[in-house]
């Protein structure tokens, strides 16, 4: 967890090098890079591996960042991380970068967890409710987790809005236990 603090420092340094008007393009890059980590779960391990030749890894990095809006900066970041043996933290740096940029744009990222897929109108009503509660414009990321049984869990920054059946049942359990 301490990695988050270090990742935050790298992310702040990265964001400082980007002009305000290019924040949207930076966010697009972050999304694309995050997708690579989701699609290839072993990517972090591979890039941090000492068995694989350094030059070979650099070539892979080149491929990964090619076509991005801030290709050179991302390449340099990857190389720096490789040099500092902190390749495993790249994912966290991406997460922190997104958070910092959204903060600067006065927006918040909302991770909305639902038990199953719902219609757009239902999602919109939840987003509207959360947006009014936290008082910020929201960028939504949806997750499906049947374990919450029903309702929703919205996580916006350090605020957690829990309207799930699972947590209500555990609360009820506590009440009846007492």
């Amino acid at each position, binding site marked *: *967890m*301490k990695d*988050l*603090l270090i990742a*935050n420092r790298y992310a702040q340094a990265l964001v400082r090098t980007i002009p305000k008007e290019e924040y949207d393009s930076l966010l697009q890059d972050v999304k694309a890079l995050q997708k690579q980590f989701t699609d290839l779960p072993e990517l972090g391990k591979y890039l941090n591996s000492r068995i694989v030749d350094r030059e070979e890894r650099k070539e892979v990095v080149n491929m990964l960042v090619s076509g991005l809006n801030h290709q050179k900066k991302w390449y340099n970041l990857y190389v720096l991380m490789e040099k500092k043996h902190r390749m495993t933290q790249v994912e966290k740096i991406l997460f922190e970068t997104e958070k910092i940029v959204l903060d600067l744009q006065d927006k918040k990222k909302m991770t909305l967890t639902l038990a199953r897929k719902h219609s757009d109108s239902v999602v919109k009503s939840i987003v509207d409710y959360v947006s009014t*509660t936290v008082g910020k414009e929201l960028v939504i990321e949806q997750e499906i987790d049947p374990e919450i049984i029903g309702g929703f869990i919205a996580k916006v*920054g*350090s*605020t*957690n*809005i*829990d*309207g799930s059946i699972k*947590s*209500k049942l555990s*609360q*009820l359990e506590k*009440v*009846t236990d007492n």
Partner: protein
Amino acid sequence: MKIHPDEISSILKKKIDDFKFDVSLDETGQVIEVGDGIALVYGLEKVMAGEMLLFPGDIYGMALNLEEEYVGCILFDESRNIKEGDIVKRTGTILSIPVGEEMLGRIVNPLGQAIDGKGEINTDKRLEIERKALGVVHRQPVSEPLQTGLKAIDSMIPIGRGQRELIIGDRQTGKTAIAIDTIINQKDSGVVCIYVAIGQKKSSVAALVKTLQNHRAMEYTIVVSATAAEPPALQYLAPYAGCTLGEYFRDQGKHALVIYDDLSKHAVSYRELSLLLRRPPGREAYPGDVFYIHSRLLERASKLSDKLGGGSLTALPIIETKADDISAYIPTNVISITDGQIYLSSRLFYSGIRPAINPGLSVSRVGGSAQIKAMKNVVGQLRLDLAQYNELEAFAKFGSDLDRTTLAQLRRGERLIEILKQDQYEPLSVAKQIFSIFMVNNGYLDDVDLSKVKVIERELFQHLDLEHKDLLERLTKESLSDELKEKMHQVCKRVKETSI
């Protein structure tokens, strides 16, 4: 006991009916490091300093360090059950404890939870643990005495209600004994006592509670216990919790006495927390604000103005010194904060003078104005006489021939010291103290053998209890008039005649 299924099901049904399915909104953070009674938490952006935090497993903590990247918290329970990545919730409330009359006679931890096995404390009143000390306009000078029942203190180092008087000395010199005697002496005086045990052995606390119970002193006493086995966070909080309990009674217009036993251990626990929270160490590795933690605690002792009810909170902090060194960091700090100190000397203790109070180094800066008139009249130059005796005693050890006046001074001094000796758990009423000192000051004991001084004193008390209750009563209220003095002389003469 018969169990009725209908009753149980109806209770359950009611609970389920009353349960509301609301959306809960929590501000959360994640544990990034945990151990040794502290946790570092990432997130919790809007957390307040001193806010209570809820960790998994219903473990509470308190935010102490608000850093740019993380929040440093102290934990009030074992940190073993908390792990990295655990979610921490804000509670939005500053740490508070239950207060009220219901707390009397109970032993509680610094969170106000009963630990005496007598069940939950049913009170709905709560007060914040960290409260700001009252301002100048809400106070008035100390004017009423707080009798400890100890001759040496009530005569030479009087304590007033609302005063802060430090009890300082090496280990095993009778610091706690003075505190216990003071509590015992508050019986029927209307003073509520709060004893705060910080970093002590559980066996010591148990023994203390037993003593208080034996003297029926627990009826008006609350014991706040944070023993050596508790996390340092609880030891750090204990004196503030005790002070809050005292403030409740003070604000009700009553008088309260709080004893912090001891603040040296409190400083040590705070040093431990501060170093773990990575605060920069200063002198003796204590953090920079170690003075402030004690000054803000002791500043809360006060005598309220009549407009606010005239209640008072007297504080008796205890400090343990090492090798009689009162110039160490924490002792000098607390000496400078308090309104005087009672200095206990191990040399005196082991030479049989108990309470081992060193009158030369002990002082009460404000208590004099709270001393009752008769005591003031009778004490006169007691401190000076003792100081002269101590000087002469050292001189007399050379064995040189001494003149009659010096010998008389030495004889008087020896008897004075003998009279000021007092057994533990035997506090005396102020009137009896006045009589004792009057007797020795007026030379009634000068020709009495040293071993018989205590016998005569006992005779005097018996005589007073049996025949002069009215005189005792008058002494507590009036100043020493010639008529009163004459009566006292008569009593002293009679007691001396009958006992020799």
